[in-house]
């Protein structure tokens, strides 16, 4: 059940394209501070900070303070539940195909 809640947070966090862009940037280019992220994000620094807070809540990013700076890094292992989503739907639809087939047989009777 805890896993489902975590999945929900990951989906919610990544439902926003700006957050996906920030996360992907961190996953590809490594640790960054807010200023560097803002330069790429095309939105204001407070907006970037807010997005980072949501990503952090979903455990998709981790922060590390160094002096006055906070550095953020991606935690891509938090994505696993989302990638499992495809596997989930494959199983779901196979099951529903079975149910559809047996229902079609019953429709004849």
């Amino acid at each position: 059940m805890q896993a489902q809640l975590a999945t929900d947070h990951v989906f919610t966090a990544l439902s926003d394209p700006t957050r996906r862009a920030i996360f992907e940037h961190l996953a590809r280019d490594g640790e960054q501070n807010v200023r560097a992220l803002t330069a790429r994000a095309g939105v204001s620094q407070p907006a970037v900070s807010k997005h980072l807070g949501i990503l952090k809540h979903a455990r998709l990013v981790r922060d590390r303070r160094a002096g006055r700076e906070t550095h953020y890094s991606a935690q891509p292992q938090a994505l696993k539940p989302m990638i499992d989503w495809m596997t989930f739907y494959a199983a779901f639809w196979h099951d529903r195909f079975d149910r559809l087939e047996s229902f079609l047989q019953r429709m004849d009777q």
Partner: protein
Amino acid sequence: MNEPATTRSLVIEREMPHPPEKIWRALTQGPLLEEWLMKNDFQPVVGHPFKFRSTPVPGWNGIIDSEVLLIEPNSRLSYSWSTMGMNSVVTWTLTPTTAGTRVRLEQTGFRSEQDAAYKGANYGWTKFMGNMERVVAALD
């Protein structure tokens, strides 16, 4: 579909020994749809918003928000499928065969509604998923 080759989609195909017209009824008549898929208030009208309702579980309210996108009687049916912030599209295609009908389901898109408004970048779900799957695979 202007997604690049990295489009993530799920395709399931099965041949069923029934005519397309009959399968179409099972796909598009609410009470019949409920028999094998989920409770719903589906109506075969393009633009009709509806919900599929499943048993809620902690962390998920069991609701899938949908809208009918395409209807070609006895042939193609498409609706959006949105749940947990993830918006995808489900498309059913029925093709008559000598033995019955080939039933094809495709679930694709995986992009959020905001994507269209996001200027300059291509961070659609599909591309994102493709990129991230590689990142996660590399972790093991």
